[in-house]
């Protein structure tokens, strides 16, 4: 082994130790995660101020109470006094708390107005909560809606698999500093630092909540509403958030992962994403006839990834609880038209969503083909993008 190799190994070990150390620090956390936006800093200050005021009140009240408990006890020979009112005292302890509350309310009002002011954003990202994944859309990056970059971010299936296994060893093994357990998704939300970013938050099916602790952000994602909030990230890094409003079965499994990068890196990433988007759009709208095997391969990826189908219908297509199995099901082995309609338009009054709004024609064709041929369904049907296009128009 050469000297440089030793150095490399030593560096790696040191790095690992540091990461472990920070992991330990995380495990012992008693307070907020470190703030990285101006709003989060203000919130932290407000939180600590209110906390110390509460501590002071507690010391006074509990001090008097415990003094009384130790001194004024019968076993100590205490004889009960006779007083049972004192107007001056009562007025005093009505007014003093009121004044304290005014002291708290003033900075609280200031911070609230600051955090609710979403004007002058350099970048707008539309965030849609979907059972159980997030859709991100960079709305007006170049004022041309046709070029909006958008993608769906879903937890990786290995996270869910490890979770349902309940096996701590497996979970520990999966958990790495770069890919923490339950906080690892297929596509991170990439954002530039030092720019005002406005988030437009909405919900697709039920109410979710877009919660990133280190940004001081929590905004409910409500169907039919577009809520606004904002962040100006001060440090590059990876930041984690989770859904904060109960949204059904996989509420705990729709994390938010933000990768904050420099403006230059963000611009480069955006260019790459746009090129990809253009290519994907072309592919989906072309009249190309796809081979069964290719569709199944693509559909497999969507079923276990972007589409998030595995969340309800299971990786093995067996469903579970109120969620129907696809293996051998009437829809997945019956007429193609019914299958298309179900996936594109969803089923009202159930968690089955209208995927027509989330996936393009090629993706829908692929995932439907996959469902019709996986787990022994073997219908041999190869649904094509043009079939999807036709079905979208069907009544």
């Amino acid at each position, binding site marked *: 082994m050469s000297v440089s190799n030793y150095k490399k190994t030593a560096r790696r070990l040191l790095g690992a130790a540091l990461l472990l150390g920070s*992991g330990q620090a995380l*495990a012992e*956390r008693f*307070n907020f995660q470190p703030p990285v936006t101006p709003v989060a800093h203000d*919130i932290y200050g407000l*939180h600590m101020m*209110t906390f110390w005021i509460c501590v002071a*009140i*507690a010391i006074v*009240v509990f001090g008097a109470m415990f003094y*009384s*408990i130790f001194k*004024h*006890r*019968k*076993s100590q020979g*205490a004889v*009960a*006094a006779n*007083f*049972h*009112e004192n107007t001056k005292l*009562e007025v005093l302890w*009505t007014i003093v*708390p*009121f004044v304290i*509350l005014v002291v708290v309310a003033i900075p*609280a*009002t200031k*911070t*609230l107005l600051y955090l609710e002011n979403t004007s002058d954003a350099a970048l707008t990202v539309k965030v849609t909560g979907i059972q159980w994944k997030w859709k991100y859309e960079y709305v007006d990056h170049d004022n041309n809606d046709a070029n909006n970059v958008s993608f769906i971010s879903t937890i990786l299936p290995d996270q869910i698999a*490890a979770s*349902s*296994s*309940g096996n*701590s060893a497996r*979970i*520990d093994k999966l958990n790495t500093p770069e890919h*923490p357990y*339950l906080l690892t998704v297929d596509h991170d939300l990439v954002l530039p630092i030092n720019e005002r970013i406005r988030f437009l938050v909405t919900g697709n099916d039920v*109410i979710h*909540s877009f919660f990133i*602790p280190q940004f001081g*952000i*929590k905004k*409910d994602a*409500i*169907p*039919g*509403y577009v809520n606004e909030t904002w962040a100006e990230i001060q440090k590059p890094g990876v930041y984690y958030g989770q859904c*904060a409003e*109960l*949204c*059904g*079965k996989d*509420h*705990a499994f729709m994390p938010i992962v933000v990768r904050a990068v420099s403006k230059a890196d963000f611009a480069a990433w955006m260019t790459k994403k746009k090129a990809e988007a253009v290519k994907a759009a072309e592919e989906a709208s072309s009249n190309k006839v796809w081979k069964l095997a290719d569709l199944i391969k693509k559909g497999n990826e969507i079923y276990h990834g972007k589409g998030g189908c595995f969340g309800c219908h299971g990786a093995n297509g067996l469903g*579970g*609880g*109120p969620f129907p199995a696809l293996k051998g099901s009437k829809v997945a082995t019956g007429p193609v038209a019914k299958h298309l309609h179900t996936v594109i338009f969803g089923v009202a009054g159930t968690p089955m969503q209208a995927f027509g709004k989330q996936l393009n024609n090629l993706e829908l064709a692929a995932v439907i083909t996959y469902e019709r041929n996986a787990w022994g369904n073997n219908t041999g049907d190869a649904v094509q993008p043009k079939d999807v296009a036709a079905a979208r128009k069907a009544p």
Partner: protein
Amino acid sequence: MSTTMTHDAGHHEEHPTGIKRWLFTTNHKDIGTLYLWFSFTMFLIGGTFALVIRAELFEPGLQIVNPQFFNMMTTMHGLVMIFGAIMPGFVGLANWQIPLMVGAPDMALPRMNNWSFWLLPFAATMLVAPMFMGAHFMDGNGPWFGWTFYAPLSLQYNHLAYFVFAIHLLGISSIMGAINIIATILNMRAPGMTLMKMPLFVWTWLITAFLLIAVMPVLAGCVTMLLTDKYFGTSFFNAAGGGDPVLFQHVFWFFGHPEVYIMILPAFGIVSQIIPTFARKKLFGYSSMVYATASIAFLSFIVWAHHMFTVGMPVAGELFFMYATVLIAVPTGVKVFNWVATMWRGSMTFEPPMLWAISFVFLFTIGGLSGIMLAVVPADVQYQDTYFVVAHFHYVLVTGALFGIIGAVYYWLPKWTGNMYSDKLAKWHFWLSLVSVNLTFFPMHFTGLAGMPRRYADYPLEFTRFNQWSSVGAFIFGFSQLLLLILVIKCIRGGQKATSEVWEGAEGLEWTVPSPAPYHTFAIAPEVK
């Protein structure tokens, strides 16, 4: 007065026995007993649900139940504890004590009293029944949408009608109970007992009963809109049909916030009875206690949206609800100061009821202080829907409402059974509960601040340590409650005979009747000077 009692007893000593006694009873003491046993049963069921939650959260990964079942447990835990354990517990205490404390022979509307109790077992059955529907129990077929049943999530639930009708029955029962309590207090007080001479427990229940009548119909409207959205094609809460999901939350919390006070005001009353007794000193600031209770009740109607600071309300709305919410701290503070001032220069002893009352004051105040933190909107944006909120409301509901009920049971149990209970067992129960309840809920402040959202079946590894503390605490707390069951059964069966006064410093009409309180009391009204 004891002579008039004996004279009267000759006429009324019909004392039905067996199942008929309980099914057809119109006696406030029997109905109170039924309520209290029902409440305790539901407490054990709801507690079992809580232990499933805590067992699952002991370590990361899903070891015991699937996420659907987990959600069902959080939902059923909340519903069963609120509507099954805490509310009926207080109504049971009201039934037993209000007639005894105002010198009335019974409740004003005894037959309705019977009905309001007997609706409960059916409502509870209908609430839990869907858990056993569907192919597999472990699938989680019961309500799984959170006890707050937010639309549109709850509209995805298959057996919604069971839930809706269970809530209707519970609501009807509560409204009838409230009407009965108001009618009794306003019409049947002993001569000389003016409103401002009523014991604080009676006062707090009078105000609570008005809150119940005001908000239970709102809850009924809320679930009915849900029902028609689900089954009759309306779109109250469905955005796609022109409805408004946030409307649901406004309606729900317009019920929900007064509901919080429905669960705590009677506990304020209980503590205001217990502390003067064992401090051997009159309650400090009686009239300010009454006014503070009324102010809290009034404010409870104008603060509901502080449960919804993240839904995207207009800033003006957020400011209004923040200011109104922090205002509640003023009357609540007055109450706490009054309790401390009652203890001040008293001659205190620490029998079990006093232990529970003091720990109520201490721990409820912790919950109150975290409530002030939560009222501050920008900070609430961080706390909302995390374990910090879970810690807060368990401090006010477990160490507040529940400790109040347990304190009341320890206070009045000798009056009900005629026997003193085992002091040793009571102290074991108290100290185990006190330590474990804090072990359970205090670490939740930290998990919440660190950012762990509530209602999560599984969590990232950084939250493990505190979750483990909470789980250990929860199991100790849960099993400690069986000591109360043993203590009560032993006390019913026998023990040292209780005097009519029971406690040295006790004052009030209930302590003038023999222990156990005869089946019929105050057939001739006592005179209050």
